[in-house]
């Protein structure tokens, strides 16, 4: 039995939900970043699966290529921000970043 479109979409959904839970519950700033990576990968699986199984054709693959490149850029900037946060607070716990709280 060949894998169908729904199989790919289910894998993408699992990765997306895991990423969202990771972003919501992890208190380590780097852990939140990992959740973002998981979410982007779930979206990428959907793009490539639609590119294979529907009339979307090559466009889905081009989109996922852009997603990969922009995710790399986002990780670089977020890591720089995390390092700055660590220099100022001496921890990476995101719950400590509450200076803007009213």
């Amino acid at each position: 039995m060949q894998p169908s479109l729904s199989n790919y979409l289910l894998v993408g959904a699992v990765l997306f939900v895991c990423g969202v839970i990771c972003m919501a519950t992890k208190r380590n700033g780097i852990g939140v970043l990992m959740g973002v990576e998981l979410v982007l990968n779930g979206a990428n699986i959907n793009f490539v699966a639609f590119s294979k199984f529907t009339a979307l054709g090559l466009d889905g693959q081009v989109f996922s290529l852009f997603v990969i490149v922009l995710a790399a850029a986002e990780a670089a900037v977020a890591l720089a921000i995390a390092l700055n946060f660590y220099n100022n607070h001496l921890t990476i716990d995101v719950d400590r970043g509450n200076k803007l709280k009213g």
Partner: protein
Amino acid sequence: MSSMFTIFALAACLGAIAVVISQSIARMAFWLIVSLGSVAGLFFLSDADFIGAAQLLIYVGGTLVLLVFGIMLTASGPYMKIETSPAETMIAGMIGLLFLFMVFSTISGVDWEGSRQQIVEATGQPSGTVGFDDNSEGNTLRPLGFAVLGLRPDRDLASGQNTSPGYLLPFEIASVHLLVVLIGASYLARAKRRRDVA
């Protein structure tokens, strides 16, 4: 073929779940490598060879190494493990399971093949694209290169019209964006020189 899909899909899902469950940040990085590598395997299985190679090179080889460096620079002694309270984990898990159930029921409720036929009939799009058939499956490097240069021979040859848009402008925007981001990241992460008050 199908057994390979099962293996990679299971590894991707279990790796993602292990990222959520594990408390140590270094173990999270390891499970993320497993998950993203399996996603690259799924890309190879779905005829997207270049995307799979890019996933391995950029994500697993670049972004994750960057994350591991971030862990190395920020995880000191008592902050190796930052625990989440059990109540928060329970609530997040329940909401996540509900959301997953909703997405599962939605996906399995859609007739994908029927909607594809409808789209093909309504828009007159070619159902398959040239250079995308079984003879050259997975060989997407040349069509992708043309697409980011603004040419779409895969669409134009199939439909007979010369109107398909390429991706030259997004490609240029992405390249300038990368340049700006890298300069900005090195500016943000630079070693600050403390200025003495005169």
